[in-house]
């Protein structure tokens, strides 16, 4: 216990006295602005917190020390004193040439890692010349059809010095294969590559919408990647289990926390089902969270996430390697909190959200740019958001000590509350499951029945209504508005990218060894039919310049395509 029973009694007694004297007098004269106060997620907040709110806590067991179980305070014993978080701006647009130039600019400005945004056709497994790619090529990310584009994308970027995160899911195996081959060409073997492949399909069905195949084969391909990375890529994060997009879709902090960790548990079970050794794959699992507006709630969420994961991995799944217990995560500030009105205000919002992520102990961070309610960010806007991180890192002093808010009665109480609420949700999901692997089957059942989608749609609608009733103030939108709209400069995507990409594809199909392409695609079909690990045949396909579309079409013909239930 943090406090002696005797002390707690005294504090409780003093609190009552304070309420009936000091507080009461003031409340009679000046009532508070609202009847109830709550976090954005609806967790009630008390007027003041005291040791009595964390009376049941045990310091050693519930908090511990940085670098030790249950890792609430930090996963590293030296926190940011040893190494700052990785400043990693998600970027990609137009052609591989355009994006390569942006990467080199970001690296020259002090960014410490790359994060690749792929365009939608790439993410959905269509080549640039597919009818479904119409109007989408190069729009929200870089267009990658084959290894050839990837070679251009990483031209003059040394893969032994830069770590790369790739936001790619349904065709993750294809893009990972390309990255491995680029490494080989630079004489950097797979075991030396550092970075992350997102490879998280659950959140695609729940919130992000970039799925191709139905859940079962999708999760199986994700597990192929876990298996392959476990064997050959010890420094590579084989998955980034993401709550970010659920939050963007409207989930609250509790749902984000619970659904993400539940997904994590389901992937663990998918790997265990294949008889993989937990302490071989679990250390390479990584997470991705949102940092939203409610400052203390977000900090508490990150702290709670580390504790829940550590306990689950150790106690439920019996992992023995401490690295398996550690929840490492990337954070992105909340895109959905950005406003089109008075866009400069977004710099301030992003700063507060970024600070919450840092105080919550994130391993890497993306800060959004002020103009993203209009378009992809301009170079100038991206630069400001990178500078925001640098100011927090180098000027604010918050990195000097580890987990500085620990011991705050409020933060600890809120961390406990979030843990409790998340565990309740996880229990609900587990109860949906059947058989030996209840979290895995529970997640799939939840998606099939629309459980997650409905939960998120309800939370998102409630939030919107609160804003519209002005119960929630959004500066510049429902209060402190301005009549005049401030013009803002936005990034223009070159509309000729699609034509260019189609021309490059045509040339590629003429010059590559098409017989070999066919052979490797046939082999892929065979391996998929006998449910083997797809990483191996996909590496062979990619090596002879088979395209993302060709490879995904083979798999489409075997697995079919997923159609969502449109729930609103």
């Amino acid at each position, binding site marked *: 216990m943090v406090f002696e029973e005797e002390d707690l009694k005294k504090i409780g007694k003093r609190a009552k006295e304070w309420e009936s004297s000091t507080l009461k007098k003031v409340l009679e004269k000046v009532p508070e602005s609202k009847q109830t106060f709550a976090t954005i997620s609806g967790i009630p907040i008390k007027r003041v917190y005291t040791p009595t709110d964390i009376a049941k806590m045990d310091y050693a067991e519930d908090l511990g020390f940085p670098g030790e179980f249950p890792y609430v305070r930090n996963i590293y014993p030296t926190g940011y004193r040893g190494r700052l978080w990785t400043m990693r701006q998600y970027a990609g647009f137009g052609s591989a040439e355009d994006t390569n130039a942006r990467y080199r600019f970001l690296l020259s400005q002090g960014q410490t890692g790359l994060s690749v945004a792929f365009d939608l056709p790439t993410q959905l497994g269509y080549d640039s010349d597919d009818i479904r790619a*119409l*109007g989408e090529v190069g*729009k929200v990310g870089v267009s990658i059809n084959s290894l050839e584009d990837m070679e251009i994308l990483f031209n003059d970027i040394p893969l032994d010095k830069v770590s790369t995160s790739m936001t790619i899911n349904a065709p993750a195996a294809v893009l990972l294969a390309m990255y491995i081959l680029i490494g080989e060409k630079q004489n950097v073997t797979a075991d030396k590559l550092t970075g992350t492949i997102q490879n998280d399909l659950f959140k*695609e069905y729940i919130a992000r919408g970039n799925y191709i195949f139905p859940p079962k084969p999708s999760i199986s391909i994700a597990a192929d990647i876990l298996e392959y990375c476990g064997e050959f890529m010890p420094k590579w994060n084989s998955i980034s289990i993401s709550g970010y997009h659920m939050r963007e*879709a409207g989930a609250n902090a509790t749902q984000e926390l619970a659904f993400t960790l539940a997904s994590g548990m389901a992937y663990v079970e998918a790997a265990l089902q294949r008889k993989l050794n937990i302490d071989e794959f679990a250390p390479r699992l990584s997470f991705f969270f949102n940092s939203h507006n409610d400052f203390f709630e977000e900090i508490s969420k990150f702290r709670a996430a580390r504790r829940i994961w550590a306990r689950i991995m150790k106690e439920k799944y019996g992992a023995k390697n401490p690295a398996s217990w550690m929840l490492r995560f990337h954070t992105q500030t909340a895109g959905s909190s950005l406003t089109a*009105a008075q866009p400069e205000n977004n710099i301030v919002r992003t700063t507060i959200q970024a600070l919450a992520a840092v105080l919550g102990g994130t391993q890497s961070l993306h800060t959004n740019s002020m103009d993203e*309610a209009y378009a992809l960010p301009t170079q100038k806007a991206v630069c400001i958001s990178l500078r925001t991180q640098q100011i927090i890192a180098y000027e604010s002093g918050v990195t000097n000590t580890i987990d500085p808010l620990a011991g705050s009665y409020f933060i600890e109480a809120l961390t406990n509350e979030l843990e409790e609420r998340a565990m309740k949700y996880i229990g609900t999901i587990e109860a949906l499951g059947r058989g030996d692997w209840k979290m895995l089957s529970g997640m799939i059942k939840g998606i099939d029945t629309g459980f997650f989608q409905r939960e998120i749609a309800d939370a998102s609608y409630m939030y919107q209504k609160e804003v*519209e009733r002005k119960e929630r103030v959004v500066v510049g939108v429902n209060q402190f508005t301005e009549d005049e709209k401030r013009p803002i400069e936005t990034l223009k995507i070159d509309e000729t990218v699609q034509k260019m990409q189609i021309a490059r594809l045509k040339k590629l199909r003429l010059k590559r060894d098409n017989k070999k392409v066919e052979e490797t695609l046939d082999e892929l079909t065979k391996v998929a039919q006998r449910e083997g690990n797809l990483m191996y045949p996909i590496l062979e396909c990619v090596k002879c310049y088979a395209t993302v579309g060709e490879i995904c079409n083979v798999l489409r013909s075997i697995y079919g395509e997923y159609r969502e*239930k449109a729930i*609103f």
Partner: protein
Amino acid sequence: MFFVQYMVNTGRKQYFEMNKMGAKKIRILMAKPGLDGHDRGIKIVSRALRDSGMEVIYTGLHQTPEQIVEAAVQKDVDAIGLSILSGAHTTLFPKIMELLNEKRVDVIVFAGGIIPDEDVPALKNIKITEIFGPGTNTEDIVKFVNYATLKGLRVPLHRLSA
């Protein structure tokens, strides 16, 4: 919002009274063209329209222009709401309007998403009646759909008031 002002000028009260007298239920197709997966906005707007008493059909993600136009014909809708946040609006919205014209489908089309201001005039020129950006109040969209379907607005409001 411009159309709200416009409604004030043209007697909003009168319109709401007319609506109360019980015209047929307005039927709306809400659609996500292209490959974009952002559906928070369209789901919120769909629910707000449904809550206001309209019949709302939401297509779900990844619809081709052909599928959307086909659904509009099949369901005989009064209006189509389109949402794109990927930047593909410059290609896909004109394609949808072209198909609607070809098939002589006479419906009101409105849109939302991440659409830069400078793209708006071109979209209004192809007869998308209104574009709703981030931060729009759902009540405004409900009022718009009520008003536009009643008046049969097929052209941008700014042209009517000019």
